[in-house]
């Protein structure tokens, strides 16, 4: 006979690193819903046996482990969190609203973030092209914010959590790589960056600026070795 233990009461662990934007979005979701969890910060140059066991396909963070059962891929984890803990929803009730949030989440991960990362890692014309692509992408994102405080409306939603890395890293990329994304041509985005980063739940988990600068400076030098 199967004994039903309320799923929401079981233990929650999160494998991540201190700086990963993909982990941050999961932390923010857990905090918004008031879920207690144990954080395990991995050293990606020396991955734990548990991480490799829990995510054999990608061997990456974040991985959420709920009652011993692992879930990988941050967007999949966010959907799981939303369905398991119903308080403070991060998705709207209506299917069309959900579809829009999911569309923008995918857009960030598949278009915006990769183009900004390309601009960071590449040089010369490749960097220019990547910047161009990133700024084009941002135009659509700016449009989406019209008449809204957050992507989710009055409250933080899935798309805010997914775009949130930009608020955390925008000044770092400017300082380290001279990349101003977004710049003053995107007033709504700039206002959103402010609102998001000042939200009490969000700023309670905020990879620290100085530590990020050191990390990304080292990475930048790796991609752009001094000649």
């Amino acid at each position: 006979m199967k004994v039903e233990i309320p799923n929401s009461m079981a233990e929650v662990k999160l494998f991540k690193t201190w700086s990963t934007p993909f982990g941050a979005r999961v932390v923010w979701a857990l905090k918004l819903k008031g879920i207690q969890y144990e954080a395990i910060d991995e050293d990606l140059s020396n991955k734990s046996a548990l991480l490799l066991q829990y995510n054999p396909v990608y061997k990456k963070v974040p991985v959420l482990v709920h009652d011993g059962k692992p879930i990988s891929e941050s967007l999949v984890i966010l959907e799981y969190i939303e369905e398991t803990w119903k308080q403070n929803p991060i998705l709207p009730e209506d299917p069309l609203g959900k579809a829009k949030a999911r569309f923008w989440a995918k857009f960030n991960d598949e278009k915006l973030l990769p183009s900004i990362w390309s601009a960071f890692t590449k040089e010369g014309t490749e960097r220019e092209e990547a910047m161009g692509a990133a700024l084009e992408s941002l135009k659509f994102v700016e449009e989406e914010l019209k008449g809204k405080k957050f992507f989710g409306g009055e409250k933080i939603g899935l798309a805010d959590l997914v775009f949130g890395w930009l608020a955390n890293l925008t000044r770092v990329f400017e300082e380290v790589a001279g990349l101003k994304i977004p710049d003053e041509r995107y007033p709504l985005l700039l206002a959103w960056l402010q609102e998001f980063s000042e939200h009490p739940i969000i700023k309670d988990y905020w990879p620290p600026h100085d530590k990020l600068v050191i990390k990304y400076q080292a990475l930048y030098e790796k991609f752009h070795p001094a000649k």
Partner: protein
Amino acid sequence: MEEVKLLGMWLSPYSYRVIWALKLKGIAYEYMEEDLSNKSPLLLQCNPVHKKIPVLIHGGKPICESSVILEYIEEIWPQNSLLPCDPYERAIARFWIKFADDKGPIVWKICGTRGEERQKVIEESLEMLKTIEEHGLGDKKFFGGDNISMVDIAFGGLAYWPGVIEKVLGRNLLEAHKFPRLHAWTKNFEEVPEVKENLPDLGRLLKRET
């Protein structure tokens, strides 16, 4: 019921994902074939961000990105459910749907490449197939168990594309002895009536790829 339209393209596996889902749920829709070299004003208006198919238009409102469309269809028309009820099992399903989105497309690149680049793409494709074989399928008839689900639909292109690759390469990528589970799955998948009746014409596909 509000009008349902699908902007699609005859050889796109992403277009077929939506067709299979609509057919499995018995939803009537109007299909509009897009010429991607001459995109319609409707497509550009409905998907200004990506300008791509498929686009589902429901009651005049567009939904873009095939995996987003599949979730939308599941929510609006819950009959013949394509996702499990349990949140953990749904997470597993979504993990594989995302894998199909992120890693699956390597297979389509085989025909379009040559020489060393093609070899590399073939190797990556085989790695991808091996991952599904070892971690994704188990010993079930379909990804979700006895019945077809959203994961099968997401991987659906793998059911017919190997046939094209076999003619182009002169060898079968999805060999039964190397990929027994996947091989069996392609047969099971193609036997589902709603899939069988909605597959791209292999002859026409080959003409395009050779």
